[in-house]
């Protein structure tokens, strides 16, 4: 019974392609996130999204866009992939409840390699 799942686990693609990574959570959470972990293992927030607002880290290129078909899913679309996009992308979710801070639970990651 996976809490936060991502597909695919590995993604190898050519520069210039457009790709998507899917994320699903079965925790009933109302907020989902995307993080990027680079080759030096630095983990950085990309997006925070619930049904009311999308918060974007200003350093994220507009080639990246999150799309949420419903509360349980937050997919990451990447256009015109570049070599520097190679990284591990983590999805996470939490329940944001009236200002009370809730733990974020992470998916297993998607390892993206751009050739």
């Amino acid at each position, binding site marked *: 019974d996976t809490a936060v799942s991502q597909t695919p686990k590995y993604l190898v693609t050519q520069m210039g392609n457009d790709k998507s990574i899917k994320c699903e959570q079965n925790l009933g959470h109302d907020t989902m*996130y995307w993080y990027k972990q680079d080759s030096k293992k630095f983990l*950085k*927030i990309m997006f925070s999204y619930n049904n009311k607002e999308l918060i974007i880290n200003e350093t994220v290129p507009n080639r990246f866009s999150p799309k949420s078909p419903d509360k349980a899913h937050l997919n990451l679309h990447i256009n015109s992939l570049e070599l520097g996009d190679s990284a591990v992308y983590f999805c*996470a979710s939490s329940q944001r409840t009236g200002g009370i*801070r809730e733990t*974020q639970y*992470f998916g*297993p990651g998607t390892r993206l390699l751009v050739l």
Partner: protein
Amino acid sequence: SQELEQSPQSLIVQEGKNLTINCTSSKTLYGLYWYKQKYGEGLIFLMMLQKGGEEKSHEKITAKLDEKKQQSSLHITASQPSHAGIYLCGADLASGNMLTFGGGTRLMVKP
């Protein structure tokens, strides 16, 4: 420089030894989280600390939050090879629940 600094960056200890990992913030902490990551895997939630002076323990791992110093420490007692991995501290620095992470501490435990 990073908003969250972890030290040490890497650590090799003999099995059975105690160790401490520190996480220091340049900003006010609204919540401090400790995660563990094994190679090729996702992040496993360990503990969350919110109040100054708060201390939590799980099995042989204890985390403390010193709010005044904007610092947290993670202490492992009698380390085992199963403790090996990358320990990441994450903090909510802007009260928006978007976590900023430290650079990680790579722990190796020699049997």
